[in-house]
């Protein structure tokens, strides 16, 4: 159920070398996005464990966004494929917990993608707002 004035809490997994500088640049340019967006930076988006994603939902995050390296990844040409597998795996786990798979989203972000990041956050917030808070679903944290 959509709630009025609801600002969905989003956990972003970004990468040290590629997407994080893009997110930093959004701040530098004072391009505003929701203050309920929190970022964890890792070496590569292919290294995100589904259990971390599940932990986020358990702790009250309404959505998880993966700012992936895509074809820019300097570690693996198959980075997008690997990251996608992680999402598929996570969505399987999410369904088991009655969490809408739309609550996870991935997009490739480059080191200067300040505007795309802000626009992704806006769009994802809108989708999550329509879904409402995770707690309003029949979600059962373990």
């Amino acid at each position, binding site marked *: 159920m959509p709630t009025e004035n609801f600002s969905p809490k989003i956990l972003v997994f970004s990468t040290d070398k590629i997407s*994080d500088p893009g997110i930093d640049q959004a701040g530098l340019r004072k391009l505003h996005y929701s203050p309920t967006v929190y970022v964890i930076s890792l070496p590569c988006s292919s290294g995100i464990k589904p259990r971390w994603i599940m*932990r986020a939902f358990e702790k009250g995050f309404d959505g998880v966004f993966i700012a992936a390296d895509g074809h820019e990844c300097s570690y*693996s040409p198959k980075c997008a494929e690997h990251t996608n597998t992680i999402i598929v795996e996570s969505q399987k786990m999410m369904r088991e917990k009655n969490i809408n798979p739309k609550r996870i989203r991935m997009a490739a972000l480059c080191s200067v993608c300040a505007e795309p990041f802000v626009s992704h956050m806006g769009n994802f917030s809108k989708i999550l707002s329509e879904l409402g808070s995770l707690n309003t679903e029949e979600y059962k944290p373990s």
Partner: protein
Amino acid sequence: MKQRIGVYICHCGGNISDYVDVEQLGKLMANEDGVIVSKDVMFACSDANQKQMIQDINEKQLDAIVVASCSPKLHTHTFRGVAERAGINPYNYTQVNVREQCSWAHSDKPMDATIKAYGLIRAGINRVTHSEALESIEITAQKAVAVIGAGVSGLRAAIDLARMGNQVYLIEKEAEVGGRVLTSGKLFMTGENGKEVIDRLYQRLKQMNNINIFTNANLDKISGSFGNFFIDVNVGGELLKLNVGSVLVTTGFDFYQPKEGEYGYKLSENVITLPDFNKLVENGNGKLIHNGKPVKTVAYIYCVGNRQSKGENKYCSRHCCTAAIHSSLNLHEKFDGVKAFHLYRDIRTYGKQELLYQESSKKGDIYIKFEEKEPPIVEMKGNKPFIKVKDYLTSKKELTLDADLVVLVTGMVARSDSNEISGKLKIPIGTDKFFNEIHPKLKPVETVIKGVYIGGACQGPKNISESVQSALSGAAKINAVIRKGSIELEPIVARINPEACAWCNKCSEVCEFDAIKPIESNGKMIAEVNISTCTGCGICAPVCPTNAIEVAHFTDNEIESMIDGFASPANIAPREQTNQNTSSAKAQSLAGYPKIWRTIASALNDKPLSIPQITEKINISIQEVTWNVMTMNRYGFIESTGLDGDEVYHIYKLKK
């Protein structure tokens, strides 16, 4: 578990504190488990604060520190240094980004920014609680370098590496050194011939006794890791074994080869590529003759094989506009009365190369702009090419040009054997098929393979000067790391929990760097990580069905505790409003600033003073006074009233 943590929350002048209530957060964080010291500081990165942190660490026996300030990209190194100087392991330090990702991004919502900062700092404290003391991996390094490819970049880099005292092995596939420059004729700017440039480099190279050049040589096999690579080179059928500390790849590029029928290529002998045309001009004498017929009109078609929105090569090759215009000028210089048409999409002669464009225009070269959606059409009447082109600068009027020769200005593409080299050295290849550096701006010549560097046009289209610059920067990077004879690697690598591991091979299958191999341990097979080749990317971790892999510094405990930190509820009170507009409020607000600011302010209370006078009055080093006075001035607490009698120093007073 760290139990004596110091937390420092930075005002960053006002960059953070204008929006985030850092004073309140400083007080709140003091109540967190394990936090012994919690302070809000004006500039966390200032010398004064660094000294204070070291003092706190020693006095309060802190075992970990958190600094909430700007992006970790800026100051992680600074504060790891502080930790190290105070005797704490640098990996027991965490930097929290409350500037770029909080105060600046949410300057429109200060209260929400403070709530977010609370979560971010809590996460930082949680993470550092679980942080581990990691030791950098130190390995011995051979002071020898293999340079693969002896084009202009490889030759120049080899000279520099040798000059800096390294043994250099220069490996060239062809029978002679020099690569593309050797046959490129007259070069822009200096007017030298490419062969002259190469000859000069080769003479210098021969005089150095620590360079070995191998021509007709192919890289056969490479093993080992940074510091100790073992390379097998096939030199004319003979196998040579080299032991080097690092590898610089300068294998260059190929020219785009037009497809049959592309702008009439191969349908007529009068459609040729720019490199072939340049040879014709170079070798021509008196009259320009092609296929026994004099050439009076030349039509250059630009962007052939480049900037294809629907094709393979989406990029611009940067050098070809200049190369075509330079070719045209050479043509005019050598042969009288030859007309040149330039059919272009956009002219990209940047920097000093723009002068060539001006010169060519003055010489009467005709420039006709077309668009990708309506490219010129080359038709043959007999053997003579006719070109139909819509001129976008004159209302898309269709023109028909008859030219004796059509020159296809072809760009650079990745070498056809780049896959083979990438396979052997494991350098990642980008979608443009050139080799990929870690980051085009921040790490432009490093690859993710430790010890393997790239330079020149093998990483993307470049002109000669840019190629040499990048190869030299690769050489400088290599020398900086191997000169000591040992290398320190970041300890961020994957590690295996032997109890949980049941060797299913999944981790090794996804590892791009062959860093995981099976090993027998306590009667069972488990995975083992080669820490000198592991890049710490973590791709292996999520695929493990038993969660037996973690990457140091990004462990489950660290990441999950961060998530918990973000999620914990915040009890933030609205900030008390102070009137910041009056000078008295400004002076009072110094209460939250470093003590030295208050001391300086009280010294200026009686009368305006210069920096040496303040130094004398308050007896603190002139450097420290200078830095703080400058900062106080910048943030409007004090102002200059003019210069002193000798007109050397400004006299400062408290701002009214």
